[in-house]
């Protein structure tokens, strides 16, 4: 009891340990797990990342005007849902051209708003994928 008594008094003159976010930025560790970044030109469209993703946050959906790439024979388009992603990096481990086609950056996802394909529009993409 007495040690807590003294501690309560001395704490009065100490700087509080609260991080005053957002005035002060939060320190990020070097291994911070941020967004998955995709480079269209490097991709070989093996679809391994899509199969590896546990929550299904990566989808290759058919589209009409794909970015010109020789490997893209089925005219697919890479779609990524950062609000579904759990940032486990299974996709990067599955990727045969990791560090080129798929990388993990230290960026945070934006706060998801309605126009960001968070829920209903992503469901449409999933249905489109199932239809293939």
């Amino acid at each position, binding site marked *: *009891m007495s040690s*807590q*008594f003294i*501690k*309560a*008094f001395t*704490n*009065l003159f*100490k700087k*509080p*340990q*609260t991080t*005053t976010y957002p005035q002060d930025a939060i320190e990020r560790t070097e291994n911070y797990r941020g967004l998955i970044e995709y480079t269209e030109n490097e991709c070989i469209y093996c679809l391994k990342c899509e199969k590896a993703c546990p929550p299904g946050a990566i989808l290759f959906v058919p589209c009409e005007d794909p970015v010109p790439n020789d490997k893209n024979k089925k005219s697919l388009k890479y779609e990524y849902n950062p609000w579904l992603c759990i940032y486990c990096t299974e996709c990067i481990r599955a990727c045969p051209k990791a560090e080129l086609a798929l990388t993990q950056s230290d960026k945070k996802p934006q706060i998801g708003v309605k126009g960001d394909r968070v829920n209903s529009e992503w469901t449409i993409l999933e249905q489109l994928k199932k239809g293939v």
Partner: protein
Amino acid sequence: MFEIVLILIAPLVGGLMHGSQRVIRARMQNRQGPPLLQPFYDMYKLMDKRAFIVHPYHTILGILHFLTLWLVVALIILGTNLLYVIFLHLLATVFIVLAGFSVKSVFSHLGANRELLSLLAYEPIFIFLATGFYLFFGTYDISVIRENSTAIMTLPLLFIAFLLTIPLKLKLSPFDACEAHQEIVGGVEVEYSGVYFEFLYMAKWLEYIFVFSLLTLFAGDSILFAIALVAVVFLVANIVDNSTARVNIQETVKFLLIWGFGLSILNIIGLSFV
């Protein structure tokens, strides 16, 4: 005139004391905590909330509790009879106890029960306090007590007994079993909402004024000593709050009845030998 202004701003001063208490508590717990004016921001927010009335008497009793407490504080500032003040304060507590029992919520009942039990513990000490002042000064008049020099040297045990009731009245650990939000969700406060809760909230601020103005009676006519006394007691009460756990209501009553009651009686008996 000065007294009238003082009476009018009493709840605001109480709010500031509550705010500073929250700041000090936060610093003692090594965290940032709310700003000093947070109680007033809370009030502003509460005004926006939908007020839900369980039944009119419950609400009226809550308002009466606040008004009576304000009257108590006013009487202290005006310097009237100490005994009136203490009994009027008892009435204020009775209002809130009645309010607690008038609704169906179990938590409210438990809170009112605990409030009654704590009344049993601290009320004798208040009455002994008045008796002690009467025996020393020959009058119950607060204005007379304020004009004479300090009585703390002759009433030291009563002073300690009074200090023991401060955590109970301000709902600080270790004697905050009446409110005990982890157990009974605030006790009697639980059924108040919106603008009507504000009255209970302000009543809490007035308790600060009530307790500390009783405390200043020990300082007599020296204003500096009064300020020092309030500051030190305020700080110590907060330190104790931050180094103890909540004690059960039974233990609280037992502790106060043994120590508070015992010390007061010792002091009164001692006075008759002086």
